[in-house]
């Protein structure tokens, strides 16, 4: 067989001019930039399923490359010659781009794996027959505290009964007063009493700073805490301008029956050591058709509880239209200027409706009925 003739007259022509180094540099920047940006976009925007599919594809490609390379000599030698020549690194643009791409494909899904696993493993959470509460009837719990009717329980000679009822109802650890009655100096002489629960802000500073969403706003407008997620960093306590967050510094001093309960973040029983707690607005009580403990405990019916959607609130004795009641009685918020938009409204006063003189100072200290029986737990002061 004759060898194919060698053409002497073949002229490859002038070789293409080498690209200017600056153009090469620009290209490099552009390609690498593209790889990085697309990696970032994929990572942050891609749906979990898309990313999983990409990761699977990358895995298959990677395994294929591995098999192909091991067939031609050992992978190790091959890799060495790619990366080092005479001891000098020769990683080039193509290698770099490949690295970027593979990294993005492998790293991207890591972020969504937990969610994905939850999706895959979780039981169907939708109740059969759909949401039992139509969206329009979503409750928006609110509280109105009428300071005209609050005398800090001076007239009955007991510690503030809202606080006591709350403690006994929630089995809250000593010394937490989720609703605490502060005695505030008036502009003139004398004082007024201000029962202060969590204000359930609609722009909640505590929720804004929580690193793990352990505290969050519920669809009903409440700020709740998941004590099974809280890491105890206490930045929410620094952020809350109402001093309404409490920490379980040690083993929580609670009665034995609290320990038997099944944990629920709407009830916060049993308390969890090393986590934050606060007033939860008793949405479970309201849904069951009764009123929060503090309202049940109040002897002067100074606290109203209701639903902004329905525009109705009650103190257990009378029913008021929220909008009208707030307008007619000069309602205000605590620290309105901070823009936290609380769900708790106050009606100005100093207990005049229950015949308290502002000069009559002082209220009795609150007691925890199980102080002596909560064995093995040291209580602490605030």
């Amino acid at each position, binding site marked *: 067989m004759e060898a194919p003739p060698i053409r002497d007259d073949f002229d490859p022509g002038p070789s293409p001019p080498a690209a200017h180094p600056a153009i090469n540099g620009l290209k490099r920047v552009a390609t690498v930039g593209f790889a990085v940006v697309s990696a970032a976009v994929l990572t942050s925007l891609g749906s979990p399923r898309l990313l999983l599919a990409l990761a699977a594809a990358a895995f298959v490609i990677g395994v294929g490359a591995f098999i192909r390379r091991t067939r031609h000599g050992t992978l190790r030698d091959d890799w060495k010659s790619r990366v080092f020549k005479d001891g000098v690194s020769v990683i080039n643009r193509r290698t770099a781009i490949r690295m970027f791409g593979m990294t993005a494909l492998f790293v991207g899904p890591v972020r969504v794996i937990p969610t994905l696993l939850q999706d895959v493993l979780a039981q169907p959470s939708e109740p059969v027959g759909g949401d039992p509460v139509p969206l329009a009837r979503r409750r928006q719990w609110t509280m109105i505290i009428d300071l005209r009717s609050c005398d800090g329980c001076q007239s009955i000679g007991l510690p503030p009964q809202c606080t006591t009822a709350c403690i006994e109802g929630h089995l809250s650890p000593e010394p937490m007063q989720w609703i605490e009655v502060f005695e505030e100096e008036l502009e003139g002489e004398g004082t007024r009493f201000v029962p202060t629960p969590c204000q359930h802000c609609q722009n909640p500073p505590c929720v804004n700073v929580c690193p793990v969403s352990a505290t969050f706003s519920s669809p009903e407008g409440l700020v709740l805490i998941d004590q099974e997620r809280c890491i105890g*960093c206490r930045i929410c306590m620094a952020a809350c301008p109402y001093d309404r967050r409490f920490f379980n510094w040690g083993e929580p001093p609670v009665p034995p029956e609290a320990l038997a309960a099944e944990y629920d973040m709407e009830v916060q029983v049993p308390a969890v050591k090393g986590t934050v707690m606060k007033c939860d607005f008793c949405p479970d009580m309201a849904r069951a058709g009764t009123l929060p403990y503090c309202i049940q405990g109040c002897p002067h019916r100074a606290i109203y509880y209701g639903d902004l959607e329905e525009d109705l609130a009650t103190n257990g004795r009378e029913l008021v239209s929220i909008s009208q009641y707030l307008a007619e009685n000069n309602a205000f918020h605590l620290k309105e200027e901070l823009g936290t938009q609380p769900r708790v409204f106050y009606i100005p006063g100093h207990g005049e409706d229950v015949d308290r003189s502002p000069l009559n100072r002082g209220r009795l200290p609150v007691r925890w009925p199980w102080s002596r029986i909560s064995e093995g737990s040291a209580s602490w002061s605030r």
Partner: protein
Amino acid sequence: MTPWLERLEQTTLEPARTTTRGYYYLVGGLLAVIGWALYAYYVQITDGLVVTGMRDRISWGLYITLFVFFIGISHAGTLISAILRVSNATWRTPVTRMAEFITAVALITGALFVVVDLGRPDRLFNVLIHGRWQSPIVWDVIAITTYLTASLVYLYLPMIPDLAFFRERLTGRVPRWKSWLYRKLAIRWQDTDTQKRKLHVSISIMMILIIPIAVSVHTVVSWIFAMTLREAWNSAIFGFFFVAGAIFSGIATLIIMMAILRKVYRLEEFVTLKHFRYLGFLMAAMAAVMLYANVSEYVTSGFKLEEGAAFIFRQLFVEEFAPYFWFYLIAGLIIPIAMMFTPALRTVGGIVAAAVLVDLAMFVERYFIVVTGLRAPLLAYEPANYAPTWVEWSIAAGGFAFFALLVTLFVKVFPIMAVYEMKEEREALARPRELEGATEGSTP
């Protein structure tokens, strides 16, 4: 080889070659302190944070103070190696390695204190699993891990030629694991032109990159405070103020560290009075910056004296925290400036004394920033009080011991000065002079 280079190489090799008995005593002592701190932490884990002095109303204390302080001194490395490198200030070369190492070690120590402060350290990984972009804590996690990675890279890159030098000179004369370590870490450095060029490019990229990272770190540390609705922390200057304070305390820590290492490993020829003076002047300049920031901060809020500000001013200027505040202001800012203005005090001893004052003052400053901010009552109640307990002091001592231990171990294994860069810079300096000498010599 010039006698100068010979001496430099011997001085740098010395710590890795020989170990005195005092060294073991020191390591033993530090380990004992760390052991005690671990016991204190065990108590805290079993009993809860109730063993600390923190309570609901002052819910952060010594741990967060130490977190801010240590992250602050980590800015030593960035300033000395990055900012001064960008400005081509070659005098810094002999002390860069120490500064970069302070950075890495201080960052690790500082980050540990956040974990110590957690009520549920067992749930630490919730930050990765459920992390929220919007939380200042997550900003801190991102910034600090980025900074730690970057500063480890930045510590390692300029060290590669020095590690190759150790590999050549020490293989066979040190334990086998050390030889192995130098061989691996020197990643086949042969001092070829290509390698030099690539190293130079990598260092240049890192030194630019690390400056914004460092600035972002202490800015977001300050935002942990400034993002809350607390009067004392409600300040736009906070980020800048914390970064300035970080560099300030970083320089002071570097001066102290330089003095100790210079004494112990006889670096007098290379770490000279000039270095102490230059860093001392830098420290004084930063003190002036701090003073300016303080004046801006307190005059703008103190002149108007809004409702909440009045309480904060009282407790800071005349009541509970007045000793701390005036110590910080006078001993930490004004005296160091005055000392640097006094020629008689510009000795190594005088500058180290000023640096000790600065570090103490900055620690106190971090403390009163944290505690006064939380102490101001939010509603009608008596202000709470805070005093650290033995558990907190023990863990704090453990933190300092951990910091010292890492430095102690480091200087035993790694080159304590940037030999390669010092050599190169000296050669670069010598070259034109040699030429001049040659021309002068040739003309009779």
